[in-house]
């Protein structure tokens, strides 16, 4: 199991819809709008790094998502 913290910036004022859209992505365990340098943060969990890449790609393609930064869990 590999986790990632996905930091998202949305187009202006769109964070509520983006949060709902991200919530639909199966690998997303937790998602919430935030204050600070980002608009939304998601906790993503997948079986492997390939599935994680696909989940993050899907998030980055959602309408309203302008920018994502992914912090992938170090594998040991």
């Amino acid at each position, binding site marked *: 199991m590999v*986790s990632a*913290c996905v930091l998202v910036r949305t187009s202006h004022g769109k964070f509520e819809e983006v949060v709902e859209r991200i919530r639909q992505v199966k690998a997303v365990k*937790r998602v919430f709008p935030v*204050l*600070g340098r980002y608009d939304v943060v998601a906790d993503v969990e997948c079986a492997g790094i390939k599935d994680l890449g696909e989940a993050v790609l899907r998030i980055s393609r959602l309408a309203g998502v302008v920018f994502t930064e992914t*912090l992938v869990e170090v594998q040991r």
Partner: protein
Amino acid sequence: MNACVLLKVVPTKADSILETVKAIRSVRKAFLTYGRFDIAVFLEVEDYRELREITIRINEIDGVRSTETLPEG
């Protein structure tokens, strides 16, 4: 209330810091990360006061260089 706290730490102390952070009651998930930060932490707190208490505690851990807190808004 959810929050995400991102840490930059002294590399040699990352593992011990992670253990210390995981022991904090309101921490739901914490893991070492690649990228601009070294540790990502997901918290669930009652309010901003509790969040502040925890971010102070995290900042006091030996080896923590800086933190960026993203509270639910």
